[in-house]
């Protein structure tokens, strides 16, 4: 059964009061019917030896009698030693940028995967920074370049040991309690596989004497990941309730999830003009399309901050911007030569559209979106979709101003998908 069908009964407290004899003074809602205990201190370590930057760690979710809900990584990084001739700083929002790829697998089938920068841009649309203090503290985020302390913290980080917390809040079972993952209902164990970003893309560095980007290694001793732990919540339910869960999962249960489709790495020259990106990888039912234009220097070692929009001069020698994101002039969306979304300018998208679809958000970052539904912040209760395969030849037409470097255009379809758990197996419906 689709659990969203029960959503009103489970969470709509007012509906329960209006349609039944339940007293307002009763304990009501989820807690009344589902007694559970939560253990926040479960930790697992990767199989085999610990990977460092650029490597890959595999974590097992053991088959045990509790459901897994929130998940986060606790990463311990050793102190680096920056060469005397250089200065270096970690990029902003390390928690997002350190994840080159994260995927959740069962029996060699990928159920859900994401890249850290996708999540960063998604969250910049979803939330305002004032609501993200806890995240910023966990992940060394919200530290823009420039004098005044914020970037100095990131520079200090390059030569000090620290612990970083990375919330894995894109995975479907971490999003709502009734979606919690039941490893006991599977025949085997599920894997969480993390690819860490290379250190070269997580640190930008300058030569003190010249202010130039460091060509070789700016460190005499590199910081390394010494320990990585997968922390998770375990939800323990009473035996009768648990048996009920397992019976439901044995019969089959469907979870609506959000997924990413990628159309990345489209090139654009540095000159002002109109650039078209063919979106022929995007086929699923779209929640919204999200895109960014970034300097091609994101793939140059030790050069810039991969997900930064703020062009304020860096405090490192040489000054100048370390921002990667570049503003557009305007965009259109075309299908089979017809206009689907007519000219929308930079500020129209970041101010007007964002205020309509993500009220109370921020406009600073150069992250653009094309919505196909209301309630875009909701995972399960969105109001609509647009199937992109049905649109035929889909093209994103960007008008870009002149830029100092060539650019890379990344487009993502935030798409609807379905996870189906049944009879000891779990699969994703559409790929």
């Amino acid at each position: 059964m689709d659990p969203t069908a029960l959503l009103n009964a489970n969470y709509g407290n007012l509906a329960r009061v209006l349609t039944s004899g339940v007293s307002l003074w009763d304990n009501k809602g989820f807690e009344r019917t589902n007694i559970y205990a939560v253990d926040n201190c479960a930790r697992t370590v990767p199989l085999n030896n610990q990977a460092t930057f650029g490597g890959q760690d595999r974590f097992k979710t053991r088959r045990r009698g509790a459901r897994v809900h929130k998940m986060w990584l606790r990463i311990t990084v050793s102190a680096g030693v920056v060469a005397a001739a250089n200065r270096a700083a970690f990029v902003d929002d390390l928690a997002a940028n350190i994840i080159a790829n994260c995927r959740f697998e069962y029996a060699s089938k990928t159920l859900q995967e994401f890249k850290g920068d996708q999540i960063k841009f998604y969250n910049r649309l979803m939330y305002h920074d004032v609501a993200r203090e806890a995240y910023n503290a966990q992940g060394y985020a919200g530290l823009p370049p420039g004098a005044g302390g914020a970037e100095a913290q990131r520079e200090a980080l390059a030569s000090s040991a620290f612990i970083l917390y990375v919330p894995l809040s894109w995975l479907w079972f971490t999003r709502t309690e009734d979606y919690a993952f039941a490893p006991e209902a599977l025949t085997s164990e599920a894997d969480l596989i993390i690819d860490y970003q290379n250190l070269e893309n997580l640190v930008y560095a300058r030569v003190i004497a010249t202010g130039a980007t460091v060509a070789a290694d700016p460190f005499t001793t590199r910081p390394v990941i010494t320990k990585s732990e997968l922390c998770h919540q375990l939800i323990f339910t009473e035996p009768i309730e648990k048996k009920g869960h397992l019976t439901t999962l044995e019969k089959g249960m469907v979870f609506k999830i959000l997924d990413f489709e990628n159309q990345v790495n489209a090139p654009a020259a540095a000159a002002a003009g109109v650039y078209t990106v063919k979106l022929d990888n995007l086929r699923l039912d779209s929640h919204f399309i999200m895109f960014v234009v970034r300097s091609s220097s994101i793939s140059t070692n030790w050069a810039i901050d991969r997900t930064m929009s703020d062009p304020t001069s860096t405090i490192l020698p040489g000054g100048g911007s370390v921002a990667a994101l570049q503003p557009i002039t305007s965009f259109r969306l075309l299908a089979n030569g017809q206009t689907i979304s007519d000219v929308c300018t930079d500020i129209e998208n970041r101010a007007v559209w964002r205020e309509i679809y993500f009220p109370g958000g921020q406009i600073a970052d150069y992250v653009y979106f094309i919505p196909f539904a209301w309630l875009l912040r909701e995972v399960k209760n969105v109001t609509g979709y647009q199937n992109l395969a049905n649109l035929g030849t889909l093209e994103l037409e960007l008008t870009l101003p002149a830029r100092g470097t060539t650019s890379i255009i990344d487009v993502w379809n935030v798409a609807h998908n379905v996870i189906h758990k049944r009879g000891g197996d779990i699969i994703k419906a559409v790929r």
Partner: protein
Amino acid sequence: MCGEIEEWQEVKQVDVRLTTTGATTVVQLPSLIERVEQIRLDEIQITGFNGGASGAVYIDFRTNGVNSVSVNNENRSGCMLMIDVLNPHTTFQRPKILGNGNFMTTNSFELSIRLPSGVPVLFTEAALCLTFVCRKSENSLSEVRRMKAAMLPAPSIKDGIAYNSFGGN
């Protein structure tokens, strides 16, 4: 598995040529490949490899829902290849498995070829012959077509009245 194709599978041959560097490249195909179950590397030729120094590299294939299935003691992502600069062309008797998928559909993927240090390897040209092993579509199996043709229309409920093969009520 030695590169067999089962009777419920079909294959698409995909050839990829990369130049200069093994840094992550997005390869776009002019064809949509559906229901992919496995990606195999049958042949590879790398010229001008790593300044003339032979050695092992990790080749990493990625697209939505397909990822490398290899595991290694160095915690690198990808499948290891041994490149001998004196014999740059290799045909694998047992094709290397670059990734497993589950009915994945794609027309683009990311490829990278990196040294064990994680640094993209430099070369003049890397030519790869890949086999995409796909599950046949339901209707391309003659047994399924025959079975479907033999099936009687099942009664269904329409406007509250059960449809039957006698027509009328």
